[in-house]
């Protein structure tokens, strides 16, 4: 993997860590407010949900490694190597096409959310829902990258 790609990935990972750590801290604040100070905070629940959406969708787009995904491997593993490659290439192609197909409509949905805000903190729902679009972009980019790698391997 080229140096720039490695750096991008490290940056993506760092953002996942920041989001997850913030989520955890928000929870600790919520629990301490309730149990230690007997003063439940109205905003922690909402912020936790927003951070949860960001953590999981961002990490799915940027940090999850290919081999970590839940897949159905049984049929693939029974195939000869030549067929396996064809299966992988078709899979990446199908996924990138479906991602591209879903992107414009998803962007429209998320942009329409600029008008709505979250009930307590007043965060525009655009910022809450944005990571879904980032996930789709991540999926398309990663499938394209995987296809590129397969092409390089086929040439050598």
């Amino acid at each position, binding site marked *: 993997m080229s140096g720039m790609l490695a750096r991008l990935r490290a940056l993506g990972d760092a953002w996942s860590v920041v989001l*997850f750590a913030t989520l*955890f801290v928000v929870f600790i604040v919520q629990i301490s407010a309730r149990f230690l100070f007997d003063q439940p905070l109205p905003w922690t629940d909402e912020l936790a949900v927003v951070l949860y*959406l960001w953590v999981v969708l961002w990490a799915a787009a940027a940090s999850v490694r290919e081999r970590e*995904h839940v897949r159905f491997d049984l049929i*693939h593993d029974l195939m000869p190597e030549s067929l396996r490659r064809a299966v992988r290439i078709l899979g990446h192609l*199908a996924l990138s096409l479906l991602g591209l197909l879903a992107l414009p*409509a*998803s962007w429209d949905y998320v942009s329409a959310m600029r008008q709505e805000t979250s009930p307590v903190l007043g965060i525009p729902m655009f910022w809450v829902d944005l990571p879904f679009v980032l996930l789709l972009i991540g999926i398309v980019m990663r499938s394209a990258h995987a296809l590129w790698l397969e092409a390089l391997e086929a040439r050598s």
Partner: protein
Amino acid sequence: MSSHPFALFLVSLITLVVLRVPIGLAMIGSGVAYLGLSGQDLGLAAEQILNGLYNSYVLLAVPLFILAANLMNAGTISERIFEFCGLLVGRMRGGLAQIDILVSVIFSGMSGSALADAAGPGLITIRQMLAKPGYPPGFAGAVVVASATIGPIIPPSIPMVIYALISGASVGALFLAGVIPGLLMAVALMIAVQIIAIRRNLPRETPAPRSTWLKLARRAMLPLSLPVVLLGGIYSGAFTPTEAAAVAALHALILAGPVYRALDLRGLYHVLLDSARSSAVITLVIAGAFLLNYVFTAEGIPRLLAAWIEQQHLGQTGFMLLINLAFLILGCFLDTTVMLLVFVPMLLPAVNALGIDLVYFGVVVIVNMMIGLVTPPFGMLLFVTHALTGVPIRAMVREGWPFLVALLAVLLLITLWPALTLWLPGWSRG
């Protein structure tokens, strides 16, 4: 009902899954294809998934339980429990195998994932067994794999949180309902180990000198307090399950960091990153299932299935036995999260129509799915243990059947006798 796009939806789903597309993304992809083919707005995919996640507050417990388990594994907590259990059952024949089961029971009271159990305490005991003559690698692997299934049955439990989300059953009641079945699984596995240990003359552990007993017990005391706090908190209603997850993670962080000094900042960074990734992998499947269930509901599939099941006049017991058989077979081939999120929602209308208690149904189904984690060819626990230790999967499967029989016996027992699951939550409600 438009059968044409729906047929194409099923075809595209199966095609994507066979093409090795990650299952969550395959569900999202085929859902998008369905929306396109039936002339609906493709933005519905974003809407269904985002609203589903945004409105599922209980799901927040999942990343926190994952974080808690990762912190415990990084922070020598498993080692301490291992030493403590050695005091209790080490002198039995096949002592290391008995220790492993007991450690799993205690670890189950702090973590909600079978895979975390195999990767943490399981790895410690398997290494000890492999270093000793007398324990064949396949046997060592089989014990660890079988005992890890207890993890999500004794609370807390990630699959129970997910089941609560799809069924509307109370997480607290589900957690309490898992206690007796989990302990039964441990007893059944210990009996199986005892029989094998006598027949093969497996070694006993040399007892720790009496003078160290107090020290070892003290070393384990702080970790052992966590299950008590968690269960007590959930049982008394002081914490919600989500808060319990955060308390567990905080407890583990304090022990691993300032108290035991087993975790530095770099270690914490990696624990957080691993937890974010594992949470993302599970949530992708959940997100896909939201869209899949939208399609199934739009096509009226659960209702049709409920009507069909009612026509079969199975009765509650017949239905439960049939479901168990079907899930055991599916569990040999499918991932358990996928089964839980795809097949269980389809069955819930039938479960309600037959008047079956949702808590009882959930615990039976989850025990069944944990057995699915150890049955080949697709058993995640087998894969994880093989990847961590190099013990061949075939060897684990060959040595594993007595444990499989033990677990199946417990499954049959709790299926036929609902009181085993429902007595504890019913009693706590008074």
